[in-house]
């Protein structure tokens, strides 16, 4: 049971979606209109490159000390969806771009 749950948490990087109201986006718009919010979620273990291993090694040998580095790939949008337009509570139209992910990848 526990292993199953653990595995579920480590799904590879993929596109997921949520139906959210425009107000919930937290962008400052007031609107009850519902939009589809697609985001990237999952792990990137399979995408570890020699770069990541070497960077980790440099850090453990304290060759890199103060700088902020990231020694593992992360799951991010590779492309964003088209613009989203909506009518707000004051009957004004707005268009938001790069709101939603279209394609995900380990970068």
């Amino acid at each position, binding site marked *: 049971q526990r292993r199953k749950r653990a595995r579920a948490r480590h799904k590879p990087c993929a596109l997921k979606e949520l139906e959210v109201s425009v107000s919930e986006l937290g962008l400052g718009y007031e609107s009850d209109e*519902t939009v*589809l919010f697609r985001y990237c979620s999952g792990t990137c273990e399979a995408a570890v490159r020699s770069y990541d291993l070497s960077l980790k090694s440099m850090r453990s040998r304290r060759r890199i000390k103060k700088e902020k580095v990231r020694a593992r790939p992360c799951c991010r949008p590779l492309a964003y969806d*088209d*613009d*989203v*337009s909506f*009518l707000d509570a004051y009957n004004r*139209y707005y268009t938001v771009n790069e709101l939603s992910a279209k394609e995900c990848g380990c970068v």
Partner: protein
Amino acid sequence: LAGPPSPPGQDPHGWRVPVDCVRANELCAAEPSCSSRYRTLRQCLAGRDRNTMLANKECQAALEVLQESPLYDCRCKRGMKKELQCLQIYWSIHLGLTEGEEFYEASPYEPVTSRLSDIFRLASIFSGMDPATNSKSNHCLDAAKACNLNDNCKRLRSGYISTCSKEISATEHCSRRKCHKALRQFFDRVPSEYTYRLLFCSCKDQACAERRRQTIVPSCSYEDKEKPNCLDLRNTCRTDHLCRSRLADFHTNCQASFQSLTSCPGDNYQACLGSYAGLIGFDMTPNYVDASTTSITISPWCSCKGSGNMEEECEKFLRDFTENPCLRNAIQAFGNGTDVNLSP
């Protein structure tokens, strides 16, 4: 009606099969006599009015011969490939046949035969979908949600909204031409189950009715600094083949009839709603005049001021929008999800 003895465009029994005008033009082009007469007629019509044209014997003969060809009763389809070309061919013959100044013109579009009651059924399912529906329902908001959750509808809706609300300069607050084009794309390419829900949603409160009125971004696509006279607007529309055709289609399918239960020709709500939506994105773009929830009033952006002795004709033209029981019943029936049941 048995056709004349020209084989193309006929089925084996000699009955004329309806063909679209692009195809009819191809059939005509393959026949030397037809194609030469058609060429003559087009030259006759170019830049001349009907009376001068008919005074010419050669022109008259060409028209008579073409009445026997498949070009005579060809029709076009909404959103077909080469729609404009098809309509140009249609009017090239029909402008010679009619006065060109008739009040109602016949639609160049094929009649809508299938009663797409599915759309009405869908609308009724949607309107009863949400459990919390009765007290705080906003069908226009639900329609926007349904559109946003469909990639194609969302893309084309955002397309026209962003085009129609994009400011050009301090004096020109949007590009009406581009806005109309984007609206036409939306209504041509998105299935009517989405577009009609946005356009004809039923409302119980003002916020909903205002959202319904805002559907086509009226500040850009509809309103203008001045309100032209409706007959002038009609003349402008008639100089454009597409606008003229859509208006003729609206008159054919939404003309109030006192012979039917619903006031619509053939009790066909679908056809009326379709030809109403077909006017959006042209000079004759109609819209709700206010955000009233109780009475639905539709009008193009025009008035009958300055009609002179044409006042009566102008009022008659405008009433087909503002006081049309067929159009009103069709919109209300769609909003309530009730199509007519024609019991035999």
